[in-house]
């Protein structure tokens, strides 16, 4: 049996006396697309941020390729070369063009020379459909375009896993589709993705696994058809029906 790409075990995280994650476990194989859903405050984003150690855990174990990455002696920068991240608020580097946003990491961190980084960067921008905007600054892009640059920036590091922290939540409704489409393409290409999102469209069509998180613990998980059609826990069912109601009114 091959070892999972990502394995999280008994993860605990508190902010002060507030326990946000109460012993969470999760496994992902290469090529998996896992979507984390759950009410706000359930710990989804915290879980995501623990994986690349933007947030430090209190206890538990996170392993990437079988290597524990939570130890004090783990080189976080080595870890982050393997784990890309896409932010809710994009966080594109404001003083750099779209292309420069994508090439900064490869140039400064991976030591790629400028010409190679640019060629690769253009490919990544093309992959998200933004080659023509290569020389635009973030402030000149729409929200959907910004997020697609954010995705290209993460891909440019050639990571083993990409984390998506509510990638469409800050977008106007009409711009959600273009980002979801790009994410679906990535899923088809076999990019391993851990996604916090309530885009049911994406979850249904691209996810290999849905994980429902509530109050800091995983209530249930399973393939989308099973979890959406036949949730076993009452809490899941209630959450899903609220989500459906919201989708219909939206």
């Amino acid at each position, binding site marked *: 049996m091959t070892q999972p790409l990502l394995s999280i075990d008994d993860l605990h995280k508190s902010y002060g006396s507030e326990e946000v994650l109460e012993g969470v476990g999760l496994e992902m194989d290469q090529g998996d697309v896992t979507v984390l859903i759950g009410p706000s405050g359930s710990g989804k984003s915290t879980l995501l941020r623990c994986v690349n150690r933007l947030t430090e855990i209190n206890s538990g174990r996170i392993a990437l390729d079988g290597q524990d990455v939570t130890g004090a002696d783990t080189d976080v920068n080595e870890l982050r070369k393997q784990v890309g991240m896409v932010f809710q608020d994009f*966080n*594109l580097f404001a003083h750099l063009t779209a292309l420069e946003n994508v090439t900064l990491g490869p140039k400064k961190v991976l030591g790629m020379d400028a010409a190679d980084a640019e060629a690769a960067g253009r490919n990544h921008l093309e992959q998200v459909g933004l080659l023509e905007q290569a020389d635009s600054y973030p*402030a*000149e892009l729409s929200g959907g375009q910004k997020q697609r640059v954010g995705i290209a920036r*993460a891909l440019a590091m050639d990571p083993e896993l990409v984390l998506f922290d509510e990638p469409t939540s800050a977008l106007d409704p009409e711009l959600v589709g273009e980002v979801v489409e790009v994410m679906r393409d990535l899923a088809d290409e076999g990019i391993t993705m851990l996604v916090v999102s309530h885009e049911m469209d994406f979850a249904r069509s691209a996810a290999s696994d849905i994980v429902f998180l509530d109050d800091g613990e995983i209530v249930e998980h399973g393939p989308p058809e099973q979890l959406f059609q036949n949730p076993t826990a009452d809490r899941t069912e209630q959450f899903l029906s609220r989500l459906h109601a919201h989708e219909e009114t939206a």
Partner: protein
Amino acid sequence: MAAILLQTVDWLFVIDNMGLLLGGTVVTIALTVASILLGFVVGFPAGAIEVYGSDRARRVVEQVGVVLRGTPLLVIIMILYFGLSISSSAFVTATIALGLRSAAYQSQIFRGALQSVDDGQLEAARAVAMSRFEAIRHVVVPQALRRSVPGFQNEFTIVLKDTSIAIVIGIGELLTTGQNLYEGGQSTAALEIFLAVSLVYFVLTFATNRSLDRLSDYYAVPEGTT
């Protein structure tokens, strides 16, 4: 009143001695540039320490800044020159006094600019595996420097004009040259001489501000959400 005081003969005296005033102007410019550079070299790291430094380092920098900002420049110059005699060169002493005082103010310009850059920028840079230092250097600092230009323009103007205080330790800068012309030359020409001196200060500050505006426009990036 002014009409009586502004005599043609006195203006001719000023024009005749324009070479001397320009010589003083060169010293003023040299003193300004040296002081601003010293202020930048010390002030920028000081501002960065106030934002990113350890508690201890931050406290030290803050306290030194408070003392420097709370002491009149004239007093700083006199302490350094007559009190501590840190250098026999009046120019060097004035540069250090103006430079350290400017560093104390420039540190606040840069501190504010660094703090104004959204935390998400640093976080995104860390997420592409940059070290904290790399992230600050390649992502935060370039944005902060752009935002510090208006404050820096102010500081430049202030230092330029405050070089005149170096008159007390006898550097042949612009104001000293004017003073010498008035005392050792034509005492009726005081108003004309000091008006000419003011004009030179004004031209210098105006030209510098315009140049920095140009520089700022050249490096400007479109503003907005990222």
